[in-house]
């Protein structure tokens, strides 16, 4: 019994101190982000590694999720004789929910873990210490480009996911189920509101991007300098980020209605 209490206490303390560390880390990252130099070359590298290399998985997943939504939506709506609203159902669920959330989850697995592993390996091989000894702050040189670009690519990839998803829904609803193309598009146009839905979707994706960027870089930066440490940090990035994304998603939706 005592052991259990002690264990819970220790875990809580660890969690709180971790939260403190990540806050300080985030603060230093923000300072670095507004301090020159911008390091354009590194930013481009990161766009390629985080964004371009994730294009395939995002497009394929978007298309598949859209097709499933089309199928499920059609079968459900047909029961109420409301299949002409399929466009609205597919578009709204993708824009408000599936786009940002699925993109963030996929990016966590694809790019977040890679980021943690890369920084963690640099820690294990003393490359970050090497930078420090050359009077270069690793947060500025290594962490900043990765975190900033994660913030940039998440909304863009989320938008791409949504476009492919809607196309997938259209394929099912119109080409396969024989719905009317005009009705599909019109129902979509009538129901999607730019500020509430589209801008909100971008905002949500941006927040998830910040979350992935922060957790992934922090985990790498603070990992134990061993191969076991790097692998533990990578796993932890995927678990922590995925769970936080789902929790944040609920609160963003509940509080701001996006």
């Amino acid at each position, binding site marked *: 019994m005592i052991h259990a209490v002690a264990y819970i206490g220790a875990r809580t303390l660890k969690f709180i101190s971790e939260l403190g560390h990540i806050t300080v880390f985030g603060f230093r990252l923000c300072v670095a982000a507004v301090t020159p130099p911008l390091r354009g070359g590194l930013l481009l590298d990161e766009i390629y590694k985080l964004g371009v290399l994730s294009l395939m998985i995002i497009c394929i997943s978007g298309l598949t999720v859209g097709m499933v939504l089309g199928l499920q939506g059609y079968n459900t709506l047909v029961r109420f004789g409301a299949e002409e609203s399929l466009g609205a159902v597919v578009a709204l669920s993708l824009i408000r929910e599936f786009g940002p959330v699925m993109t963030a989850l996929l990016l966590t697995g694809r790019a977040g873990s890679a980021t943690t592993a890369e920084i963690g390996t*640099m820690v294990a*091989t*003393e*490359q970050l*210490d*090497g*930078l*420090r*000894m*050359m*009077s*270069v*702050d690793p947060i500025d040189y290594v962490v900043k480009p990765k975190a900033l670009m994660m913030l940039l690519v998440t909304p863009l990839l989320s938008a791409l996911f949504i476009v492919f998803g809607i196309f997938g829904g259209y394929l099912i609803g119109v080409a396969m189920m024989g719905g009317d193309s005009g009705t599909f598009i019109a129902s979509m146009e009538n129901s999607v509101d730019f500020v509430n839905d589209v801008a909100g979707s971008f905002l949500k994706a941006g927040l998830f991007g910040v979350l992935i960027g922060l957790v992934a870089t922090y985990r790498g930066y603070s990992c134990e300098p061993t191969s076991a440490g790097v692998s533990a940090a990578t796993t932890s990035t995927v678990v922590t980020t995925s769970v936080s994304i789902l929790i944040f998603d609920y609160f963003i939706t509940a509080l701001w209605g996006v």
Partner: protein
Amino acid sequence: MEPTDPINPVNGAAHIVLDNVSMSFNGRRVFDSLSCEFPRGKISVVLGGSGVGKSTVLRLIGGLVRPCSGRILVDGDNVCELPDRKLYSVRDKLGMMFQGGALLDSLNVFDNLAFPLRESSKLDEEEIREEVHRRLRSVGLSDVDELLPGELSGGMVKRVALARAIMRSPEILMIDEPFSGLDPVSTKMIEALLLRLNRELGITMVVVSHHVRSTLRMADWIVLMLPDGAVAGTPGDLLNSQDPCVTRFLNEDPDEALAALENPDAATEYSR
């Protein structure tokens, strides 16, 4: 501060002072109240068994880890108490070669060497190129510009790392095991390079080495780290020491050790 040892001639101006430094990692003790000094403008060699904390001493001096207690003065600044911002200005005086090289593995050799200059000097690309090639030649490498660190041999990594450490012409050069994994010719060459840097530019050097013979040839000052504290002195002092731990460490082959000491010019000749 530790009272300066009266019999010690080179200790007049200590560039780096460790004063009662204790260090432990996660509660595991590495050393307790270690005190030693590194004289300005001289080559000091840190000797000691594997795991006594030689690399840790270098990391402490660079402010990469903080001690549990004690003071570390680098050119008068206590690096244990400096905030991060100020630490960087102390590090501008330091060059460090890590035991594992610590080269940035996403950059090729040329960019690795150019990196410190691009970050903290105003040289243009042409001057940087010249400087990089000059340093590469001085460690005996050529035609390696385009190679990535992963494509280098262990000894080449060491030499590139050494070249990078001297890139910014530091006042204090810390080198972790420059000779391990090098063939005898490269060893002599690096030894000569270090001697030349020290004699011509007056760089203070802290060299961690296991190589007793080359240590005795080049060292002005030796810090021998033993599990229960450090013994420091000139090579002559230590060779004549009565302490069994010291003699056991130095005199694996006493004749050779003495020969090396009596003929310190042997290495210098190589540099010509």
